[in-house]
């Protein structure tokens, strides 16, 4: 229904679409109403009660986020009653909260702190309840720290875990004064089905959920003259870092980021996009092999569809939820881990550096990468392949600590050897990107021709729909791939684990006919990752996505198999895709985990 109704907000008459909430109407009218439990990505909870407004004729105040506008409604968002109540609510939240802000990781980026500042809560009249509580801190996870004393029980994390991710690792437990956000039997996050995706961190208004940071460890390594610290940067970081440092959302800062990393003192600034390109070669080959075995050799032991394996939260998700489908996963390591394994082998050898002295750092839009780097099997170089994983946010903190005026930095290029990349590597940062990159390469490999899309932009796999399907018909393949002639390659792309669930259920039930599926754990793909700047929203992710595709469009090379460094590494070091050396360094195995 598109009918309009008339409301009055603070004396201003306004026409709004029927069904809009008071909060939405106020925003349209340019009136700010503070919120805490409200988040654009999530369903309405209406539990924090800071968005209360006065509606004429009603005895009680109404929660603006949860109350639909009605014809002729007269709303006051700033009456004395509203302001006093709002102040009370903030005071109450603070009384239950460990408000030791100077010692909080989220100091300066906390919605509660902002509200307290806005309303100038200068005194603590109410009793401090926080010290009377048995608050616990869970820091067993390599990715996420959960501190109950900072929690305001808005349930944004719980809704995130359920609605966006379908993981339900977090829940609301107990009632009354004991009500809290908990895992199953209050186990450590590391011991439950949590995928470490970090979306709860991105959606937490306070410091209750934060990434485990490794900033000091990295500073120590940089300062150690005996260490050679290499750093790799994931595709999505270059469209998020600027935002974290005060620039416009969706700013592309690749060159500045490289300069900043050099100034921070990293020995060599390299690019995860290089191993993204490498992933395409390995994974593309794996896909074609599986297709050959299935379609030509009629080998029933080979599993299709092939599912991408770049997203470590997705990996942990499937290990818990669909252990029976692990064989569908590509055996390729993620670009981060390929990079790590090569840094202490190929790179070390070429640069004649003792791998023991190499400290491998990665900058990721992701918190699950911290967990991934910590997986015991990720030691194929003979060392821990990736030593420290920093999120985009942590890098921004380091840049600020170093006193670098980021916006004024000149551009710089990545160092050579594992620094070269193509547009195909860049789009790994957006949902659908791996699929698009793989198709650009696989299609050309099979047919000798470029994918039949304008300017290589495979638009059907792009966008923000939770699940997208595409098919591409293979015609006139090269002789070697004759068995693919006329085959319609069916692909699916899903982002947000709740959508992955839909796709995987179809795979499990045998109702899907896909050959290849790309799954990214986070909404929007890595650009909306759990390690990206806070806040996040559909609009913010849209802008980052535009930046990713702009970055791709601006690259001179846009197909992974044209990356000269990739060609070189096969020639000099790896031999051939899926060869023994690749197999050893670039591929991995998965572990079935408990579903509950």
């Amino acid at each position, binding site marked *: 229904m598109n009918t309009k109704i008339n409301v009055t907000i603070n004396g201003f008459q306004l026409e709004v679409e029927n069904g809009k909430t008071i909060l939405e109407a106020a925003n349209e009218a340019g009136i700010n109403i503070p919120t805490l439990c409200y988040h654009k990505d999530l369903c309405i909870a209406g539990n924090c009660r800071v968005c209360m407004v006065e509606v004429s004729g009603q005895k009680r105040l109404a929660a603006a986020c949860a109350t639909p506008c009605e014809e002729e409604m007269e709303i006051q968002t700033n009456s004395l009653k509203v302001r006093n109540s709002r102040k009370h609510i903030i005071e109450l939240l603070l009384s239950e909260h460990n408000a030791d802000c100077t010692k909080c990781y989220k100091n300066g980026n906390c919605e509660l702190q902002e509200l307290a500042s806005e309303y100038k809560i200068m005194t603590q009249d109410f009793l401090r309840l926080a010290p009377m509580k048995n608050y616990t801190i869970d820091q067993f996870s390599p990715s996420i720290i959960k501190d109950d004393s900072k929690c305001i029980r808005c349930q944004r994390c719980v809704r995130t875990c359920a609605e966006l991710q379908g993981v339900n690792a977090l*829940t609301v*437990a107990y009632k009354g004064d004991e009500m809290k956000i908990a895992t199953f039997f209050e186990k450590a996050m590391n011991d439950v*089905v949590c995928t470490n995706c970090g979306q709860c961190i991105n959606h937490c208004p306070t410091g209750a959920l934060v990434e485990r940071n490794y900033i000091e460890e990295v500073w120590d390594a940089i300062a150690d003259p005996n260490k050679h610290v290499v750093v790799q940067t994931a595709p999505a970081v270059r469209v998020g870092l600027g935002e974290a440092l005060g620039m416009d959302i969706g700013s592309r800062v690749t060159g500045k980021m490289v300069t900043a990393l050099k100034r921070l003192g990293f020995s060599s600034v390299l690019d995860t996009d290089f191993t993204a390109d490498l992933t395409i070669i390995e994974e593309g080959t794996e896909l074609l092999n599986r297709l050959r075995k299935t379609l030509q050799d009629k080998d029933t032991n080979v599993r299709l569809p092939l599912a991408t394996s770049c997203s470590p939260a997705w990996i942990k998700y499937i290990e818990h939820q669909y252990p029976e489908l692990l064989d569908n996963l590509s055996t390729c390591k993620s670009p981060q881990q390929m990079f790590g394994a090569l840094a202490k082998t190929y790179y070390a050898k070429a640069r004649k550096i003792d791998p023991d002295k190499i400290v491998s750092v990665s900058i990721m839009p992701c918190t699950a990468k911290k967990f991934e780097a910590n997986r015991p099997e990720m030691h194929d170089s003979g060392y821990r392949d990736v030593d420290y994983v920093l999120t985009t946010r942590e890098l921004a903190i380091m840049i600020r600590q170093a006193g670098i005026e980021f916006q004024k930095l000149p551009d710089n290029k990545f160092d050579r050897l594992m620094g070269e990349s193509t547009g195909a590597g860049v789009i790994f940062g957006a949902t659908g990107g791996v699929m698009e990159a793989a198709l650009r390469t696989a299609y050309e490999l099979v047919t000798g021709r470029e994918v039949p899309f304008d300017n290589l932009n495979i638009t059907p796999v792009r966008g923000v729909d939770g699940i997208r399907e595409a098919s591409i018909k293979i015609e006139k393949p090269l002789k070697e791939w004759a068995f693919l002639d006329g085959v319609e390659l069916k692909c699916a792309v899903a982002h947000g684990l709740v959508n992955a669930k839909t796709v995987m259920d179809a795979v499990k039930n045998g109702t899907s006919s896909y050959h290849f599926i790309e799954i990214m754990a986070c909404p929007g793909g890595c650009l909306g990752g759990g390690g990206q700047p806070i806040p996040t929203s559909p609009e913010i992710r849209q802008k980052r996505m535009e930046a990713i595709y702009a970055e791709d469009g601006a690259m001179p090379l846009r197909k992974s198999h044209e990356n000269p460094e990739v060609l070189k590494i096969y020639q000099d070091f790896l031999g051939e895709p899926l060869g023994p050396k690749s197999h050893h360094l670039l591929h991995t195995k998965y572990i079935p985990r408990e579903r509950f």
Partner: protein
Amino acid sequence: MTPIHDLIKKLANEHGRNRRNLLPILQGVVEQEKYLSEHSMIEIARELNLSAADVYGTATFYSFLEHQKMGTYIIRVCKTITCSMKGKNQILLTIQDMLKVGLGETTSDGKFSLLQTNCLGWCHKAPAMLINNEVYTELTPESVREILSQYLKK
């Protein structure tokens, strides 16, 4: 006693496997086991295709769905206003003294657990308590001793 796994299957068959059948199933397990163990909750989650955390979150909301091991007989003494003013504490002390058990604890033989609870709805016959599903009202230290000695013989 039915093994937990079979009990949960049976309950799910009886009540259904929708989320809305969760409470009756939790109650069914508590009826037999007196509490919900980690294992029970996991099995229930599996049976209803819910996350274990959701089952835990729901169970902990309800005062009667204990998730710590309880005794065969759970004594719940009402602590709300009328019972409280009509001598609830004397009743508690009598029980603690007689069973050698603290509030919130279970006797070492695993027979009795002693808890307090909010209004049982017997204010006109205060003080009141529940032993499992059985109500006892107008309690005096003497009547409590008598009641408990019956249970001790069981």
